[in-house]
């Protein structure tokens, strides 16, 4: 048996403002992988995230910190973005507008349900903005609160989420 176990699958097939991946974190695992395939947004935009506590509350306290580095296929440039004490993670990835221009994400979450540790993420996204622009998008961040976390809320900076498949996996300790 492989050490990666599917915990939740969520499909977005119509326009929504956000996706709540709730009740996914527990004491069964320390590390989680969230794969998002074909994330489709109404605008060319960033993907944001907030943690959801075990009471189901999406926490908007100013305890989110992140750093992002991204680069497009169309020019030799690399752009840094960062933030401290924000009310959300503002830059998990990026994709273009419409059904053809999707974002594919691999996000690792560490220690969410452990109330003695901060929660961390690492995100690596390939985002198709248009033809021919593809973005390399790499981001890391931390939620600087020892609160145990049960899930994630994901939402676009602008517009709506119009499609995508979300898989959440737990990574076995042994």
């Amino acid at each position, binding site marked *: 048996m492989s050490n990666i176990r599917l915990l939740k699958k969520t499909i977005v097939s119509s326009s929504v403002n956000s996706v709540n991946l709730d009740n996914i974190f527990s004491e069964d695992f320390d590390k989680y992988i969230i794969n998002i395939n074909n994330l489709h947004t109404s605008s060319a935009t960033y993907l944001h995230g907030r943690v959801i506590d075990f009471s189901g509350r999406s926490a908007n306290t100013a305890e989110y910190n992140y750093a992002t580095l991204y680069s497009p296929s169309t020019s030799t440039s690399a752009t840094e973005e960062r933030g401290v004490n924000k009310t959300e993670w503002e830059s998990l990835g990026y994709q273009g507008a419409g059904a053809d221009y999707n974002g594919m994400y691999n996000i690792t979450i560490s220690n969410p349900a452990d109330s003695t540790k901060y929660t961390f993420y690492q995100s690596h996204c390939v985002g198709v903005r248009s033809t021919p622009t*593809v973005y390399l998008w790499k981001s890391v961040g931390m939620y600087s609160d020892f609160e145990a976390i049960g899930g994630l809320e994901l939402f676009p900076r602008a517009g709506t989420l119009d499609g995508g498949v979300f898989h959440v996996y737990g990574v076995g300790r042994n």
Partner: protein
Amino acid sequence: MPYGYLGEQPIQSKSNSGVFNTVDALDLQSDGEWGGSLEHIETLTPNGVNNITCSVLPTNYNIIKIVYTVNVDSPASNVFRLNFFESGVEETGNVYHYAQLSLQKTGSLAQSNTTSSDDLYLGNFNGNGSNGHAYFYNLSDNTKYSTYAYHVTDLDGTVYFGSGGLLQKSTVDQIKFRNANAPKIFTSGSEIKIYGIKEL
């Protein structure tokens, strides 16, 4: 690895032998809990050649993951490359797109970006080898573009990461991995493991 229930556990009134019967196994399989979610497809062991092509990929995965350790007989930069096969035909046109960043051990940041490459990068072979992983998306879906993201460390201490793809809606059914520093070759100990991320 924990077995049994995830999340809330029921109060169990019968003793549990810990042995799955056929019905248990089928139930767990339909729920995606049987066998885990990372399924091994193939391990390639290139040795004495400068390229190797995987077998025809199964079509039941939207995400393919590769994990690799490769050794070569001569160091060089940006020469670990790959090409896709579309329905059995290798795509070698200038149709690949990628953006790669590399963090050098000297502290500098280097970039490689293109919208018209004849192949895709997977880092380099400085120090005579590299280790890394990559995710490939939608290879078998001919209604989507085939894309990938990778993260590599070479044996000289440089980190490479990138994203890109083939912005053509086609069925990609094989991948050729290549040491583009021809006639240099892969050497003993090289392994490219290919997995499918199970879909339900």
